[in-house]
Structure formats: structure tokens, C-alpha cells
């Protein structure tokens, strides 16, 4: 498997993991404001900052890794992703406004708008990623996109529901929300079942599905077992959660390798040349080390708080 693909997918997995937590916080803020105020409020801004910058990091790395895909992506997915951009401004603005609000009513109102915008972004992102896998709504030859088939694809909708459940589960675990502790296991299992169902339904277009599905099933079972045992070690749960949720995301991503758009394109065919690839890996590695150190300081301080 190509090392540039792995690097790019690792960045996507990291972004999706942090974004998953933010989606989880957004959902909890919508439906359980008490838990949000008690447990999550202090973390949201830091998480949002990491998440927003990870989005930029991923976009730039995508541009660097797959330059030959840019014309295709730029033409085909311009409308849904610019729409996501619209909600991104909304989300950032509403979050900042909620931080500046003095009245709890205003804060809750802005936070509701922030949560709604975040969920819409999550929906657009997952439907776009799913369309990238299945090619739903895309005519690769004419570089045209039909919005309705793209947003009505069963694979994407199933993956969105699975992601929402996964988000709730990961958030409950990472931030130790005791009220959701037992439900989080159910959410996780349901999420895995739905993701597997989606993958199974689309076996024909997921290039490696037959082969990698076993790896996904194995990983899912392993996660569930470790998760269940970790429930008894409440303080340490969060340390298990991060790598396993990321592994889960990565494994689902690997299902499609080496094809994209339902087989119309391949990853390696759209990739940058090796000349720029080496420098890209070196820059990314150096940056990741700096990033890891900075994040370690931030999380150390957050934990001490």
C-alpha cells in the first residue's frame, strides 16, 4: 500500500476522530444541555480549534497528495463542499457568539445554532466521502454531479447514522459522561453493525470488501471486547478509546483501496510524483512532531484543570 495514501488517510482519520467528538458534543449540547454544561463546555473551544485546523491540514495534504484529483474534485464536489463552507462560517460564528454571551438563554440559543450547523457539516462531509467511494451522483466522464442522487444514497445515509452513533459513544467515553455510560456501548455496537451493513450492501463496488471485511469484523469485535473490559476501568477508558476509534475509521477507509468513485478512478493514478512526495513526507513528519508536542502540552494542561 502506498505510503502517501497511508499518510493522507491517517490525517483524515485523525480529523474525523476529532470531528466525531465535536459532533458528539454538539448532539449532547442539543439534547442534554446539563451534561454539556457539567462535562463538556470547558473542552469545546479547544477541541473546535484543533478540529478546525485539522480540517485545513487535511485539505492541504489532500491537495499535496492527490494533485491530479483536484480538477475532478474541484469541478464535481464544488457545490456540496462550498455549502459545507457556508455552514462552517455559521458554526464558527455561533460558537464564538455563545462564548461571548452573558445570558444562559443566549448561550444556549447560539449553541443550538452551532450544533445544528455542525451536524449539517457532518452530513455533507460524510455524504461527500461516501459519494467518493461509491460514485453516487457522479459522472466522472463529464465531471458532473447530481445533487439528489448524491444525498439520497443509502450507503452514505447508513454511514451518517453509524457516525452519529459512534460520535455519541466516543464522546461519552472520552469525557466520562456517566449518564450515557451504558448507552454508549449500545451506540457503539449499533454503529459497527450499521457500518458493516452498509459495507456489505456495497460489496460489489468496494474493491477489497470481501477481503478486508474480515479485518473490520475482527477489529470491531476486538474494540467491543476491549471497550467492555475498559468500562470497568473507568479512569483509563479514554486512553483505549482514541486509538481504537481511529483504527476503526482507518479500517473502513481501507475497504475502498485502491479505487475511488465506484471504480472510475484509482488513488495511485491521482497521486503526486515521488519527487514532491519525499519532501511532503518529511515536512509532514516534522510538522506532526511539533504538533504532537503542542497538543501534549494542551491536553496535559486540560487534564490538570
Amino acid at each position, binding site marked *: 500500500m502506498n505510503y502517501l495514501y497511508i499518510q493522507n488517510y491517517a490525517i483524515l482519520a485523525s480529523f474525523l476522530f476529532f470531528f466525531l467528538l465535536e459532533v458528539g458534543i454538539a448532539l449532547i449540547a442539543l439534547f442534554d444541555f446539563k451534561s454539556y454544561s457539567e462535562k463538556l463546555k470547558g473542552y469545546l473551544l479547544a477541541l473546535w480549534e484543533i478540529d478546525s485546523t485539522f480540517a485545513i491540514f487535511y485539505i492541504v495534504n489532500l491537495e499535496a497528495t492527490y494533485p491530479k484529483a*483536484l480538477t475532478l474534485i*474541484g469541478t464535481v464536489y464544488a457545490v456540496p463542499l462550498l455549502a459545507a463552507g457556508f455552514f462552517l462560517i*455559521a458554526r464558527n460564528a455561533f460558537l464564538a457568539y455563545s462564548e*461571548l454571551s452573558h445570558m444562559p438563554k443566549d448561550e444556549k440559543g447560539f449553541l443550538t445554532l452551532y450544533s445544528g450547523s455542525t451536524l449539517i457539516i457532518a452530513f455533507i462531509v460524510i455524504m461527500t466521502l461516501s459519494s467518493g467511494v461509491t460514485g453516487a451522483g457522479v459522472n466522472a466522464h463529464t465531471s458532473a454531479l447530481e445533487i439528489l442522487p448524491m444525498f439520497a444514497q443509502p450507503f452514505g445515509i447508513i454511514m451518517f447514522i453509524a457516525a452519529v452513533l459512534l460520535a455519541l459513544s466516543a464522546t461519552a467515553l472520552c469525557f466520562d459522561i456517566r449518564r450515557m455510560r451504558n448507552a454508549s456501548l449500545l451506540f457503539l455496537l449499533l454503529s459497527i453493525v450499521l457500518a458493516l451493513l452498509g459495507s456489505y450492501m456495497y460489496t460489489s463496488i468496494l474493491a477489497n470488501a470481501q477481503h478486508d471485511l474480515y479485518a473490520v469484523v475482527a477489529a470491531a469485535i476486538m474494540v467491543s471486547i476491549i471497550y467492555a473490559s475498559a468500562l470497568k476501568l473507568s479512569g483509563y477508558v479514554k486512553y483505549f478509546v482514541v486509538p481504537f476509534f481511529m483504527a476503526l475509521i482507518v479500517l473502513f477507509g481501507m475497504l475502498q483501496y485502491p479505487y475511488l468513485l465506484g471504480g472510475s478512478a484509482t488513488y495511485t493514478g491521482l497521486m503526486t510524483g515521488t519527487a514532491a512526495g519525499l519532501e511532503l513526507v518529511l515536512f509532514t513528519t516534522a510538522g506532526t512532531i511539533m504538533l504532537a508536542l503542542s497538543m501534549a502540552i494542551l491536553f496535559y494542561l486540560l487534564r490538570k484543570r
Partner: protein
Amino acid sequence: MDVVLFDRALMGSSLAIHILFVVLGLTLPLVIFFSEIAYVRTKNKQYIVLARRLATAFILFFAIGTASGTIVALELLFLWPEFMALVSQVAILPLVAESFVFFIEAIFLSIYIYFRPKLRHPYSGAATILIVAIAGLLTAAFITSINAFMNTPVGFNIPAYLQSGTITGVNPLAVFSSPSTRLEIIHVIFTSYLAGSLMLLAYFAYSTMRSRDPVARSYYRKAVTITFWIAAVAVPFVVLTGSLSITQLYLQQPEKYAAIEMNLVSQSHAPEVIGGIYTGNTLKDYVLIPNMQSILLFGSANGTVPGLNQYPKSTWPPLFIHLLFDTVVFIGFALGFFLLLVVLLMVFRKAPLQNKLVLWLLVLCGFAAVIALESGWIMDEVGRQPWIIYNVMPVVSAANLSPGILPAGIAILSFYVIVCPLSLLLLKHYFNKRPLSAELRSGK
């Protein structure tokens, strides 16, 4: 509407707004840093209140700036896919480096906002915000190097690309040292500090005049002093690098040089053209300073300046950029002289920053700085027309021609129109609810 024109309008509007957040994002940590240092040195709590209130404003600008930055990144991809396809293969490393540095900026901003009161060492607050300031500066430098690449492309075999459209001979590190990179970075950074500090200075000068509470007035004066000195230090660098940039333009982008100087013909003893509107192949409403342009460029009236007549009309940039150039030069020199005058008055112990007329003029400087900043940027970008990458890729070849982007683009533009004033309104509301006088009295 022409789709290419729409692409340009959308990108231009997004950048015009984003630039304002960028300059504030660059300057605010610097002002907070000096406030922190002043607090440690003097133990005057007004400085720490200033740092905290500015940090609150910074969060809001950072939030909107992050979103507008992401929008700009997406727009580059969606509006100019062919351009990004080339940049990604030849000049992507500054963007990769920028994304990391931006990350560090975000993380240390979080640390400053959340943990400033708990950091024990007296200089730890200053050190944390200094990291944010340095990261912001590097971000600006990396992004500017992409713009320098657009003006003076390097790092691949250009003749082969022009002939066959294939990218060969790639040196991805060359983008860091294109002929215009160094000067452009220095100019952009000091221009940003100047514009950002003058925008803040205008607000503080106005607040000083409005304030009736002597404690609050003393607080605003401190803010005026810090922002004034940042502007005063930045302005000579802006003037110097601006002048050098013009010389560089003559060497590297002669059509652009000819357009901004309104040189219709190549000639020696070239005059400096001030004003002028070009219609129907003739120039109207202008003033000439004989020989001045040749003297400024070559140190002698005998020097021959390039003229637009040397180039096909299809490669001429729109000539209104000459008026933008005049605006930038006029504002730049006016600001330079005014700030120098204020510094001289300070040397002679006249306390000019307490004078009402000076404060009003400083308010005016804030508006002038925004006009100069936007004019200078438009001049640089429009001046490169019809190229997106000079002499390599025309704008038309880079653009996304799908009309499908129109509704999403219009939605983004209209949302900016709502978000920007709403953000300022909410910031005002926030500070109204937390009166300065109460914070200054409690010192918390």
C-alpha cells in the same frame, strides 16, 4: 454573469474580508504581548486587563478568520482547480508548513486563553502569546510565498510545461526562494502590522476621546501608546520595502510595472504620472512630474522605463490599478510623515498622544490604513491579470467554468455580509455587559 468573472469576484471578496481578519490576527497577539511585558515590568493592572480584553476580541476574530481561511482554501480548490493542480505538484510545501504553524497558533492561543491565570512564571503569559505571534507571522510568510510564486514562478521546467502541459523537473523547495519571495514576505508582514495596529489605534484613540472616566482614559492611553509604537516602527519598513518592490516589479513583471505607473509608451526622461483615466486610447485628467519616474527608478533622467506599447494589448492588466497605486503611495507617505511628526513631538516632550486633534487624525489613519491595505492587495492581484501564474497560466485556463457554483458562492458572500457586522455588534454587546471601569477597579 460570466462564470470566470464570478469566480474572480467571489475569490476577491472572500480574500478582501479574510485579509482584515488576518491583519488583526497578526497584530493582536503582538499588542497582547507588549501589554503582558508592560504588566510584568510595571505591575499596573490596566495592562493585564488590556491583554485579557484584547484576547477576548482575538478569539472572535480567530474564529471567524479560521472559517474564512477554510473558505479561501476551499475556494482555491473549487474556483481554480487547474491552478491548484499545478501548485500542488510544484509549490505545495509552504501550504503544508502553514497548516502546521497555524495549528500551533491555535493550540497556544487556547493555552493562553484558558490557562493564563494559572501560569505561575511572570513571563509565561508573554511567552505563550509570543508563540502565537510568531506562529501567526510564519503563517503569513508561508502564504505570501505562494503569492510570490504566482508572481515569479519557479520550481519546474516552465518551457516544457508551456509546450506540452506536462509538469517536469520539479523542485518543490524552490518555492521558498523565488525571486520575489523575500521582499514580498517582508513587505506583507510589515504592512499587516501597520494596518492592524492603525485599525486598533483608531479604536483606542476614539475611545480615549469618548471616555469620561479618568481611569478608563488612562487605560485607553496605554493602549494608544502600544499600538502607536507598533505602527511607528512598522511604517519605515513598509515605505522602504514598498519602494524596493516597485524596482523589483520593473525587473520581473514589466507589464504590471508599466500599468501601475501608467506608462503607455516606453521612454527615457519618464515623468511620474499622478491620477489619470484611460479611455478611448487616451489618458485624461492627470498631472505630470517631469523626469521623476526615471530618476526614482534609475537615479538618472536618462533611464528608459518600460511602456505598455511593448506588449500586446491582450496582456495589459486593467489600468485602473494606476489609481490604486496612487492611493497606496499617497496614504503610505501621508501616514509615514504624520507618524514621524508625532514621534518628533514626543522627542520634544509635547505629549502629542493626549492632543485631541492628533487623536482624531489617528482615527482617520485607521480608515486610511484599511483603504491602503485593500488597494495595495487589489493592485497586486489585478495587476497580474490576465495571468493567475505570471506568463505560465492564464486566469481563464485555471477557472472552474461550471455555473453550479453560483448559488453556493452567493450564499457565502451574503453570509459574510451578515456575519461581519453581527460579530462586531456582539463584541460590543459583550464589552457593554462587562464594563471596563468595573474590570479596571477589580483588576480581574
